């Protein structure tokens, strides 16, 4: 005779039940009590000794904690962001529709879009915009092109000196811009400045650089570029460290030389890093140059070194035209927002998750 074997969840055969005895896990439907764990019968002082009210309030407390605690964690950051970023942002949008001279006692006059019309027609704004584009293009050499060249060259350097060189290049980025501005002013000074002296030795007469509308912007770019170089090199070498050396080894075994490995493997894998540096340069070229402009040239001579942030600052806090300044701020906010969106999208497309 065949008997069918039923799959059984019980691993060990259960002993027969005595009347009144319950197996752990059996529900007593009539009493409606939850199943008692076996160890609860251990004796007084065990979990069985807890009162019913304890059981009722503990889950409620836990639920409250689970709901509320996460928000407590993000509260400080949220509060700071709201106070220092989003509240001023909203106020800037409001302010751009008013005429106001920043004096708390003087009235704000609603002028609609007048500030925006003025902002886009003022010739100074046009010059500031052109200068900003020049800054972006020129600083990209220091924050993007040179770091890439240095990073690729540094691949050949091995050992502990590599870190030392990287640190050496990065140090300028840590210096206070106001302090470096002072030093650069001395370096470029027409009487006894090191750079004019050196150029004179080469037969080049530069004169008072910061009073020359053509040369002032060059001097600013050199000073800011020197600070940015370390930042760029650090980001590029971090990006390169994130690329598994197996790819280069595999490409070498596939027959590729250094040039081809760089062009076909290293650069494509580094492209998200380069896009990030590009975005940084576009967004931050104006803020990075700001402190030098304020310390040395005040945007001059004849607006030849000014940038969009500096002109915005001048309109707001030197001409006390809060409305015009706010309108410019709104325009730049939207413009840079669009640029950032394009770059973020590009980064997403270029990312190759290395797993």
């Amino acid at each position: 005779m065949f008997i069918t074997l039923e799959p059984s969840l019980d691993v060990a055969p259960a002993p027969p039940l005595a009347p009144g005895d319950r197996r752990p896990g059996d529900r007593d439907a009539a009493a409606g009590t939850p199943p008692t764990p076996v160890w609860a019968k251990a004796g007084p002082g065990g979990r069985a000794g807890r009162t019913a009210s304890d059981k009722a309030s503990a889950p409620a407390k836990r639920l409250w904690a689970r709901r509320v605690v996460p928000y407590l964690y993000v509260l400080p950051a949220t509060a700071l962001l709201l106070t220092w970023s989003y509240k001023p942002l909203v106020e800037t949008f409001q302010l751009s529709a008013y005429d106001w001279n920043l004096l708390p006692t003087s009235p704000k006059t609603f002028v609609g879009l007048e500030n925006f019309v003025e902002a886009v027609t003022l010739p100074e704004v046009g010059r500031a915009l052109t200068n900003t584009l020049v800054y972006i293009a020129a600083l990209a050499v220091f924050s993007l092109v040179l770091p890439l060249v240095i990073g690729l060259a540094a691949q050949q350097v091995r050992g502990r000196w590599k870190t030392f060189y990287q640190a050496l290049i990065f140090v300028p980025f840590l210096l206070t811009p106001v302090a470096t501005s002072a030093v650069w002013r001395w370096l470029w000074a027409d009487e006894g400045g090191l750079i004019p002296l050196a150029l004179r030795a080469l037969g080049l007469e530069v004169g008072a650089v910061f009073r020359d509308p053509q040369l002032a912007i060059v001097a600013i770019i050199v000073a800011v570029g020197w600070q940015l170089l370390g930042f760029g090199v650090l980001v590029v070498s971090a990006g390169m460290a994130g690329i598994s050396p197996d790819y280069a080894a595999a490409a070498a075994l596939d027959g590729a030389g250094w040039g081809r490995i760089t062009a076909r493997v290293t650069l494509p894998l580094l492209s998200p890093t380069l896009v990030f540096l590009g975005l940084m340069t576009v967004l931050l070229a104006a803020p990075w140059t700001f402190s030098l402009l304020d310390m040395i040239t005040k945007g001059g001579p004849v607006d030849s070194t000014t940038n969009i942030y500096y002109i915005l600052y001048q309109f707001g806090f030197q001409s006390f035209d809060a409305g015009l300044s706010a309108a410019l701020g709104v325009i730049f906010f939207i413009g840079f927002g669009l640029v950032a969106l394009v770059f973020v999208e590009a980064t997403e497309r270029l990312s190759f998750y290395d797993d």
Partner: protein
Amino acid sequence: MGTIEVKGLTRAFKDTIAVDQIDLTIDHGELVVLLGPSGCGKTTLLRMIAGILEPTGGAICLDGRDITALPAKRRDIAMVFQSYALYPHLSVYKNLAFPLGVRRLPKAEVDRRVREVAASLEIDALLDRKPKQLSGGQRQRVAVGRALVRDPQAFLMDEPLSNLDATLRTQTRQELVHLHQRLGATFVYVTHDQVEAMTMATQIVVLNQGRIEQAGPPSQVYDSPASVFVAGFVGSPAMNLMPARVVGRDGFVELVGEDFTAPLWPGQTDPLEVTFGVRPEHLRLLDGPAGADVEFHLVVDAVENLGHEEAVYGRAEGARVCLRRPRDGAATPRGLSRVGLDRRHLHIFDRASGRRLEWVPDAPNQAEPTPPPPQHALAGVG
């Protein structure tokens, strides 16, 4: 052709020697497995053959030509990496075409070879995908395909199956063996998995601490391990190794253990401290009147049912012992049992050096019996 010769190859890192003066000849068409625990230098050796790690001493020859100073790109050797190293920004097609594009082959020829290799590895449906859209097994095939497509002198593989699950690993193992047979090319394969080594290799090279412990066909490595290290590393469960002494007494060479004395061969020898070994499948329980050449006692701790057989674990005097036997319905052993083995299954190693000792019967006309010569010479590969 693809004969790889390695002479005195050494690689020293700051304060360790990863590969220590290795001499090895890999004949054309062999599938040589470099086997050893992690840190034994097998990957370092492979990377030096590939040319992506410079040796600090010694030479590498390919078909008699010294390639030690040749950069990796001019060696005509392909490698499959443990990480596969598929270019993440290129499609499968472009990954496969990469080595051919470097060689400036005409487009039509590149296309023909990529599609041929893709078809042979059954990845032709995946050609437009990026590596991150592939499963582990598919990536592994693409990595093999990229090595295959250029028809190199030799293939190097660095633990190519370690990222696959158990089922896929067994299947891929067989596919790689087929591939090797079809191509007839030289394969050098690195693994720490002795099952992979036993099943795939035509020659196994067991490495330990940067040196070759033994080189030979799998059957030789398994049947006559050249050292205690090889005996303990190859085989699962591992060979039982126990301390004993070899003595000559009354014209017989005897093995003297903690609780037994067994005459082995007629002859004479000086007393010698040894380690004797026996594989779990060669040890049998003696529950009847029949005896064995060497017998000792065992206290059984546990019996594992493996389905097709059972493994008995226990303690003998001086060592833990494992025994495998068919599940023939016999009573499960418990407590103190007597176990034994035949003389032909006995492995004897010199305790001091760890090297294998082979008994050479005394010549009948010889007046003075000679002690067994320790077998230090390694069988060269090929």
